[in-house]
């Protein structure tokens, strides 16, 4: 469309469309990112002068056992939320596209948790876990709810998973609805004529055609779960005894609460590499299984 031949003409088109986003991207993303990378090589304390310390911040960061505990915890969290969010999101999408009455009401309802900010949501669930469930548990003598889920490292982890899934499943449902409604009716009709049952159709037609929706949903849940901070903060604040400190919170605490800027930033960078690697592998793998109708 734009085939400017002259140098000036090319510059004009560039200035018209690309200069502003490029400027914003550079100043807001690239520069802070590089500055952060630079910071990992110094012993800067957030103020005052600093010296170059080579890779010692990375050594400190990688030798920190708590960092790896936190990473392992986060990976387990990602594993469970990834599976549960997408299974539930997909199931909900199937239910609300199956022609139920008032399905629009249900769509809106399931999506609502996503509109509540993570901090508020964390506090709401904190109340549910420490008060409502405990009350129900003691009244009905249900051992599993007799004491707060947030007070024990094992159940506190599952509380985080529950809240994470509850928050994100509705959003993923929306993406799956878009995927489901995008499948041409001629295909399902043909399958019906061929005598394919509901599950046959689901496995052989709908799911393969929905791979792009899965790609996006998996990527989004992966990234959201890895970076979860707000619900973590308001629900458990990393407790009890730092057992539910997810990696994003760990990085923040290391830098700002414990005032180790260098190692904290180094951990953030290590985290970036890990998440980038996983995300790229995931997207690449999903692209391979995509099919055209």
């Amino acid at each position, binding site marked *: 469309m734009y085939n400017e031949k002259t140098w000036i003409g090319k510059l004009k088109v560039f200035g018209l469309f690309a200069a502003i986003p490029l400027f914003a991207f550079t100043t*807001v*993303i690239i*520069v*802070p*990112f590089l*500055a*952060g990378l630079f*910071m990992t090589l110094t012993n*800067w*304390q*957030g*103020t*005052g002068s600093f010296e170059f310390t080579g890779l010692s911040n990375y050594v400190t960061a990688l030798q920190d056992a708590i960092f790896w505990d936190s990473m392992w915890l986060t990976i387990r969290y990602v594993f469970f939320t990834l599976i549960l969010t997408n299974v539930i999101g997909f199931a909900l999408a199937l239910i609300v596209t199956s022609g139920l009455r008032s399905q629009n009401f249900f769509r809106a309802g399931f999506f609502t948790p996503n509109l509540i900010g993570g901090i508020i949501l964390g506090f709401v669930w904190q109340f549910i876990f*420490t008060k409502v469930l*405990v009350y129900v548990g003691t009244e009905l003598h249900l051992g599993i709810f007799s*004491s*707060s889920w*947030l*007070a*024990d490292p094992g159940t506190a982890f599952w509380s985080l998973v529950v809240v994470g899934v509850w928050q994100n499943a509705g959003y993923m449902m929306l993406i799956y609805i878009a995927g489901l409604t995008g499948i041409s009716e001629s295909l399902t009709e043909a399958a019906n004529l061929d005598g394919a049952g509901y599950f046959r159709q689901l496995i052989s037609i709908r799911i393969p055609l929905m791979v792009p929706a899965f*790609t996006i949903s998996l*990527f989004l849940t992966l*990234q959201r779960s890895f*970076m979860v*901070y707000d619900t973590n903060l308001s629900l458990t604040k990393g*407790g*009890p*005894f*730092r057992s539910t400190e997810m990696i*994003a919170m760990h*990085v*923040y*605490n290391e*830098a*700002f*609460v*414990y*005032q*180790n800027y260098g190692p904290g*930033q180094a951990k*953030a*960078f290590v*985290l*970036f590499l890990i*998440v*980038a690697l996983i*995300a*790229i592998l995931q*997207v*690449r793998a999903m*692209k391979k299984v995509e099919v055209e109708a």
Partner: protein
Amino acid sequence: MKKWMSLSIALALVVTVLSACGGNGKEGNEGQGAGGNAGGKAVDITVLVGKEEIAKPFEAMVKDYNASQDKAKVTIIPLSGANGYERMTTLYAANNAPTVISIGQEMPLMKDKLLDLTNEEWVKNASAGTLDYATFDGKVLGMPMSVEAFGFIYNKAILDKATGGSFDPATIKTIDDLKALFEKVQASGVAPITVTPIDWSLGAHFSNILFTTQSQDRDARHKFLEDVSAGSVDLANNAVFNGWMDTFDLMKQYNTAKDAPLAAQYDEAPLLLADGGAAMWFMGNWAYPQIKEADPDGEYGFLPVPISNNADDYGNSQISASVSLYWGIDKEQSTPEEQAAAKDFLNWMIGSAEGQDYYVNQFSAIPAFSNFQVQPEDSLSQSVLYYMDKQQTLEWMNLYFPPDGFPTMGAALQKYLTGALDRDGVAKEFENYWKTKK
């Protein structure tokens, strides 16, 4: 092509998210200096307040101050959700440092930026020991904000009933005394104590007692702290450690939330104490406003945390009372006029009748100066003043803990409360933590 598009979009997304958590680069813009001043107009100074509890009354006080004179105009910089040190460093990096800064544990990191206040008048009036932490190379760099004390807060009415008579805190001098008291309270049908398992309460305040009661001599107890971080102390065989853990055992055994110790919430404890659900609470005088709300007429006081069965041991009749926050003045990015205005503001805050009134009656603070005309009236503050008058106070050595000290030690004590760790385990976790801080 399509593949690469989505790949790069994916990458860009990740970068966006991560730079949000790794941000806070140091590229401050060389814009405005901290508002230069020329001529006789009012000097603009800014204050960074790190104490959220007093944010509202402080705002009202600043408003009054601005109205009372026309030499300076004070503006408050809100923390806006960040923690104090994070906010300080960003403001400094942006060349927009606050003129007056409330500063606590960050003092050693910030000391090169703070104005020498040694010649201020209030230095002479400061209560004994309150300037130690803010003094570097003989220079006083901070003005004490207020005295904060912690120990076992007790509800006198409950203890009166349990002991049959008017309860005298001086009768509890040993671990056995405390145990007998707990038993009496339990026999009277009230839970003896509620333990709030927050990491700062256990890891900074309760652990403080372990260090500060090691010796009456300041140098000796600081030497102990150094020895611990050098790894040459065997905590499991330390007499104070064992006595301190014996008391913790009592707290654990008689805790209201014994079955699920970590489920206890901070907000529930003042209500329990005020409504007769618990006789005691390990906490500090900052909790008084909440207690007062639930029980305005009740009488409360502090009991020391005993660490041995010898009544004369240091620590058995003292409570931890010290200054945890100081007011400092920036000397790096503020003009001499601004610094002078800041000094005036600090003097007004603790020297004028209005300032003192705000301090004592609005902030519920216990003044760290001997020349205050306004004195706190409530029973809990009276109890702190009683210990201060008799010089029965313990230093807050937790100010010298590294920033990750309280979460780590707090975690060990939380584990002990749930039974996940035994006494030797606590000693080991403490030792291992301090070894990393050589």
